[in-house]
Structures are given as structure tokens and as C-alpha cells.
């Protein structure tokens, strides 16, 4: 077995464990393009496998109290970017309206990964198509806060997904804000193994129904099919105003599924990812009606 070259001599990197958010933002600004944020590390530490160079400098944010906190308010919940999947699932377990996010955070990967991987990292890893929390937060209409040394701004998650790969050096996703409502939600995912695996496809659903189960408002997000998760707007429009019937929703989804172009990969061919979507819509509808 070969020795890890990082244990041998070579250009030394730096690893700054930031004690506060201002300290982290200062360090990221100073390092510029040579630095990067290190949250849970479950994506960065696999860089060599993806044949990607590690950055010379990392700023660890896992010990910053305000980034590791979850605040559950009456109007919204605020999730620090360094909150782990395990912590998020535990914190939201008693809130059925966030069932989709609890399931996404609580079933992703395996227990040890969930104890390390952070919600901010999950949203920021632009090359990770199978992130569970991205479609879950899309269907919950989440917003994210971006901070730099000099300013803060809040944008929709959909906007963030479009610009995350070109986020300027020194800018950091600091928290996620999710509005509260009495919606029903569900997260349907299909891993190749029963658990511990990345999902082939994901359907996240948030729906408001009247007493007759007629759809008053609906948001559906699809993950892992294409490189970036996105809303399924045509399916939402087709379901709006109708009684949420899992069988009918499956039929409508099958008619509209051609709008997706699946990712090809060693795990499954592209067509397979797309072909399972209607079944996941059915599962999500059943789960939402039962929630």
C-alpha cells in the first residue's frame, strides 16, 4: 500500500478552525480563490477520488455556534449552514409539516455520514446531483442567506442553485430559512439498496389540500435525475385544483415525464432514473395523504 502523499513533504496547506462567523468570513476573504469553506468535509475529502485538487487553505466552520444552531420560530425555521443531517432530522422530528426535510436529512447516506455532513455543504456541493435536502428544501420554498465580510443577502434557494458554482471567493452560505405552514409533505426516494446508498431519483412534495383532498397549493421538486434538482412545474399545474389521487397523479406524471433528461452513470442508465419518477410521485402522494 502506498503512503498518502499528504503525509510526505510538499507544499503545506493550512486549516483554520474559525471560532466565529466574522473570523471565518475574514479568513475566506483573505484567502480569496486559494481558500474554501470546510463544513462536514464529506464532499471535500473525496476530492482525490474525483481527481480534483484540494485547496491550499481551508476554513472550518463546524465549531461556529451560530452556524450550528436551529431556531424554530412561529413563522419560519432557521437552520445554520453547519447543522448536520443527523442534528436536523432530530430537531424536526416532532414537526409533521417538515416531514419531507426530516426524511431527507434522516435517510441520506448512512448514520456516520449523517453525523458529519452538513446542510450547507449539501446545498453548496454543485457537482453532487443526488443531494436529498436540495429537492426537500425546494418544495418547502426555502431561502438562503449568503454572507461576506462586508454584507449579507437573502435569496431563494432556486436562485442560489443557479449561481452556487460561481459564488465569489469570500462569500459563504450561512443559514437556510424555511417558512412554516400547515402543509402536508413527503419525500420519496429510490436508492439501489434499501438504505445507505445515494438515491437514483427523488420526489419531494409539499401540498395544501382542502377537507375533500382537493389541491389548494402544491410544490413538487425532483432530485438526482438531472445534474441539478428542480421544481416540476408542469406537474404542479396539472394537479392544482383536483383531488389528490395517487393513481391519477401517477398517470399525469407519466404523461409529463419526458421533460426530464436523466443523468447517465455507472449506477444506472439515464432512462431508468426517468422511468421511476411516476412511481415516486405515487409514493409521495400516498405518504402526504397519510401524514
Amino acid at each position: 500500500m502506498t503512503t498518502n502523499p499528504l503525509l510526505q513533504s510538499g507544499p503545506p496547506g493550512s486549516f483554520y478552525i474559525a471560532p466565529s462567523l466574522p473570523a471565518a468570513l475574514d479568513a475566506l476573504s483573505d484567502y480569496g480563490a486559494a481558500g474554501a469553506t470546510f463544513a462536514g468535509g464529506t464532499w471535500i475529502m473525496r476530492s482525490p477520488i474525483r481527481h480534483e485538487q484540494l485547496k491550499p487553505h481551508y476554513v472550518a466552520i463546524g465549531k461556529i455556534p451560530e452556524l450550528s444552531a436551529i431556531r424554530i420560530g412561529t413563522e419560519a425555521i432557521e437552520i445554520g449552514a453547519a447543522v448536520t443531517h443527523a442534528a436536523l432530522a432530530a430537531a424536526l422530528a416532532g414537526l409533521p409539516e417538515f416531514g419531507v426535510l426530516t426524511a431527507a436529512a434522516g435517510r441520506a447516506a448512512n448514520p456516520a455520514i449523517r453525523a458529519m455532513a452538513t446542510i450547507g455543504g449539501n446545498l453548496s456541493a454543485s457537482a453532487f446531483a443526488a443531494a436529498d435536502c436540495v429537492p426537500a428544501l425546494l418544495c418547502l420554498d426555502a431561502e438562503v442567506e449568503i454572507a461576506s465580510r462586508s454584507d449579507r443577502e437573502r435569496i431563494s434557494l432556486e436562485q442560489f442553485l443557479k449561481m452556487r458554482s460561481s459564488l465569489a471567493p469570500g462569500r459563504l452560505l450561512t443559514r437556510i430559512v424555511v417558512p412554516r405552514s400547515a402543509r402536508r409533505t413527503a419525500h420519496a426516494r429510490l436508492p439501489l439498496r434499501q438504505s445507505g446508498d445515494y438515491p437514483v431519483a427523488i420526489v419531494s412534495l409539499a401540498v395544501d389540500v382542502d377537507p375533500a383532498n382537493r389541491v389548494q397549493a402544491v410544490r413538487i421538486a425532483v432530485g438526482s435525475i438531472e445534474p441539478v434538482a428542480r421544481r416540476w412545474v408542469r406537474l404542479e399545474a396539472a394537479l392544482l385544483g383536483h383531488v389528490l389521487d395517487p393513481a391519477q397523479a401517477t398517470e399525469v406524471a407519466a404523461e409529463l415525464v419526458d421533460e426530464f433528461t436523466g443523468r447517465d452513470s455507472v449506477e444506472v442508465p439515464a432512462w431508468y432514473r426517468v422511468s421511476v419518477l411516476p412511481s415516486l410521485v405515487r409514493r409521495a402522494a400516498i405518504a402526504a395523504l397519510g401524514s
Partner: protein
Amino acid sequence: MALTLNVNGDRRGFTADPVTPLVDVLREQFHLTGVKPVCREGFCGACMVLVDDRPTLSCLMPAALAQDCEVRTVEGLAANGTLNPIQQALEACDAVQCGMCFPGMVVTLTHLMKATPGATRDDVRSALTGNICRCTGYESIVEAAVRALAAT
């Protein structure tokens, strides 16, 4: 970068790039080869160690983050040379096969025994989600864990 780690009660300094995976430091600096670098992706669990008593994938943890923590590998689980209850049960059930995944399984189950003494068979299976056995020898391992839990 100069780093210092506490491993199995042994405190030692060394020099490495701070993002060196903990698994490589444990094997090459501390010569603790029970920790296996297999998938290096966090999927197989063969590199599982306890960091401050929590099961941690040492392939995904940079050495710099392990400083000021208590790291315990499979070599450090038998206090004073006495196998812990899960180790004893695994031996009694003859649960070992090729041994590649086994140290990680022992670490995960040691934590389960301590953190969830009332764990069920399903809890055992759930805890082992991230420990892959290529010999598919899960049943005897799960049975040993259930037996150890019943004896507590």
C-alpha cells in the same frame, strides 16, 4: 503542519498536511492497521473509529479536525486486555469472516451497545447501515450483537 493526536490514550505529535485523512495518520504514524482504508468515500465503514465516543469515518475526517479529540480504534476497545461485551459475543458466535470490514463493525457495535443498551435487532441493522461486508456475513454479526445486548 505540526499536529498532535490522542489515540487509544497515547498522545503523539507528527507532521502532515492538515487535510490528511485520519485513517492514513492512524495507519502510517500510529501503525494501527486495524483501521482499513477501503472505499475512501464513507460508504464501506471499514475505517470506522470512535472520535470523542462517536462512530466516525476516518477516511473523511481531516487530521487537523481530530486534534483535541479522543480517538479510539479497534485496537483500543479491549480495556486492560479484556474484550468488551460485543467483542466477546462476536468471538463466541464465530462471526468473523475475511476480516476486512470487521474492525469497523466492532467499533460501530461497541458504540451501539454503550449508547443504546436497549437496542433491538432492527436498531442493530440500522446502526450497521454504513458497514459493508463483502462476504455478506451479516446474519452472524447481527446475531452476536443481539446476544450481547440481551446479556446486558
